[in-house]
């Protein structure tokens, strides 16, 4: 039984669920303008958000700040 459990755990470990984090210096592609919320024309998304909060009376909860470099 113990052996089966260990084999199952080994299988889980080998399933490719990597615990490797993306390092700050590996975020070059994430920092590109195209990767920001709304792509190259975020004003379109901003307009959509404006319509949304006007109709739904709620705002926020979309997008993140920062350039992707891991800095403040």
């Amino acid at each position, binding site marked *: 039984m113990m*052996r089966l459990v*260990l*084999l199952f755990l*080994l299988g889980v470990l080998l399933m490719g669920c990597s615990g490797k984090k993306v390092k700050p*210096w590996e975020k070059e592609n994430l920092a*590109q303008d195209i990767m920001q919320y709304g792509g190259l024309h975020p004003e379109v998304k901003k307009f959509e958000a404006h319509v949304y909060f006007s109709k739904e009376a709620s705002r926020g909860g979309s997008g993140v700040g920062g*350039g992707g*470099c891991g*800095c403040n």
Partner: protein
Amino acid sequence: MIKKTIYALCFSTISLMALDTGDIIPQNIKTQLNLDSNKTYVIDFFASWCKSCKKELPLISKVHIEQTVEVIGVNVDKKKEDGEAFVQKYNVPFRVIYDTNKEFIGVFDPIGFPALYYVRNGKIVKIIMGAVDNIDEHISKDIKEIK
């Protein structure tokens, strides 16, 4: 046997520790950076795609020009050409090392950019992570305290 394999897998995921305040810089890195043992340096890790680095770079250049401290830049762009263009655009006056192989950044392992390491006698005495307003004033103050 199975137990040993599981332990080995678990421990292999633990990465090496990043350099922190009080740590000694490895000899091979010191040699490659050409660090003088009796001098104080500021090692600035930056990239062309880092917006905060663009903001800080002119102020760090100013500190170097005013000879407050010698700055050594480490550019971590994937392509050396991108780094060179960036350095040229901002007229960086200090020595810049292009770390395309991630040799230096892998050892220092900062949590973000820009990352400033104050090094004295081969030892890290202070670290500043991320963008800081008026960084030139901070560096001048820190250098006075360190010396």
